[in-house]
């Protein structure tokens, strides 16, 4: 076991060859069959513990998928099957959120935090929170911008909640579906690619949206420059999480396809942010001139609002 551990630590030191070594690890496992049962046995005893951070970080996708297959063995029509997707504790969810807000360069979010235990709690409730945060912040910001104007009558704009819900849930669930299908298709053509399961992709997307929640709250500030700076900042943070997750999955592929894939991921993410800012938050500092008021002596007086 000591030799296995040192062997794994040696692999972990060379992070650049880490994922490229995965196909090699497969061939190694064929040559040394005696070490595999010990490896899996050790893994099964401590699923998802934080101390196994380094060990599971070096694991190849085959073994993690095997472990995942052993976990989710209930048939899909039973309640227990869906309970396996909510098998997270409070500290795990908080750790995953922390990992999405403070991305460490070089560390893969999925390998580090998800580790064959993808949950649906995070994506679902982060999306729900984001929907209501955007709707409420947008409403509040519009109210504060138009506050001084005498012709302004406050409206709750409740319709925008359903629009926000449709947009955000569609982004967080359909884009991962498309991406997963695309990666699956490329995986069938080029063998040496790290592959993610659909739920892991949904997880990454869901947790990467978390940083937009404080951004949406700060977008209440009615300054254009502030809003765009905030958007760039949050786009960089969440975009980097996505890029660091998906770059290892496509970099062994054709160069142009890899760049196009990662570029599309970032572009869609940016489109979501820009679209939310444009639709839910009215432009500040827009001076609408008040309507022309005809004076008593026939001349017209144009008054400008402050």
């Amino acid at each position: 076991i000591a030799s296995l551990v040192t062997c794994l630590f040696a692999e972990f030191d060379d992070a650049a060859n880490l994922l490229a070594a995965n196909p090699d690890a497969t061939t190694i496992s064929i040559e040394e069959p005696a070490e595999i049962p010990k490896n899996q046995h050790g893994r099964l005893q401590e699923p998802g513990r934080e101390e196994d951070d380094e060990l599971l970080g070096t694991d190849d996708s085959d073994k993690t998928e095997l472990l995942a297959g052993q976990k989710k063995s209930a048939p899909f029509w039973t309640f227990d099957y869906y309970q396996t997707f909510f098998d997270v504790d409070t500290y795990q969810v908080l750790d995953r959120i922390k990992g999405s807000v403070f991305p460490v360069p070089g560390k893969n979010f999925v390998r580090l935090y998800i580790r064959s235990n993808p949950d649906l709690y995070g994506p679902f409730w982060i999306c729900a929170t984001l929907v209501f945060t955007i709707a409420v912040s947008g409403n509040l910001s519009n109210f504060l911008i138009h506050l001084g104007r005498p012709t302004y009558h406050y409206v709750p704009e409740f319709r925008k909640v359903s629009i926000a819900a449709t947009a955000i849930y569609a982004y967080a669930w359909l884009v991962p579906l498309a991406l997963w299908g695309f990666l699956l298709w490329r995986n069938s053509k080029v063998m040496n690619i790290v592959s993610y399961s659909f739920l892991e992709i949904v997880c990454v997307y869901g947790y990467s949206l978390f940083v937009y929640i404080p951004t949406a709250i700060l977008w209440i500030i009615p300054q254009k420059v502030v809003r765009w700076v905030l958007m760039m900042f949050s786009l960089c943070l969440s975009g980097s999480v996505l890029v660091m997750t998906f770059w290892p999955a496509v970099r062994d592929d054709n160069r142009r396809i890899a760049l196009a894939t990662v570029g599309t991921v970032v572009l869609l993410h940016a489109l979501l942010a820009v679209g939310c800012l444009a639709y839910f938050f009215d432009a500040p500092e827009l001076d609408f001139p008040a309507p022309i008021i005809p004076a008593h002596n026939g001349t017209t007086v144009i008054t400008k609002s402050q």
Partner: protein
Amino acid sequence: FAGLADVSISQDIPVEGEITVPVGSRSPDEDFSTLDEPVKDTIMRDLKAVGKKFVHVMYPKKSSALLRDWDLWGPLVLCVSLALMLQGGSADSKDDGGPQFAEVFVIIWFGAVVITLNSKLLGGTISFFQSLCVLGYCVLPLTVGMLVCRLVLLAGSGTISFIIRLIVVVAMFAWSTLASTAFLADSQPPNRKALVVYPIFLFYFVISWMILTFTPQ
């Protein structure tokens, strides 16, 4: 009965007696049938149960009465009255008005179902309808808050009325969340309590937002 052990009955002696034991003027069947009681008794029993649960919500203690005898009458009454009170603010012809009756109804019931599913999926031991019952009954402080807000809005809709409404809604929101947490927290696994409480917080926050932003036409 020790003395009867020595008694033996020979098969030649006929045994006679009464098999049925008289239990008084009512047979056991009539205890479970409520067909014969006056209608007032039936209605009052249900109303008293609902009223008792309202009192439990207003003074939340960790009692199991709310959980044991769940019913959905109270949540229905509260949801309908809240949705009706939120109605008058959408007389605007544009789509930017407040929520319609159906939207409030769907948000409350769909939200309660989703939260219940969430707590069950996380490993909670509470039953589905018990959780719906608790979440529905804990809308009571917010309904009272809505009533107060409408009364305040009758007096005027300036800044002072807004501040009063804000204080009332925040207080009722805190009351609702604390009441439902007091009832539901025990049935959750200990290291996932925050994961279960947060959606409840979000649910009552959305309802409070709808109440606070209500503007009459």
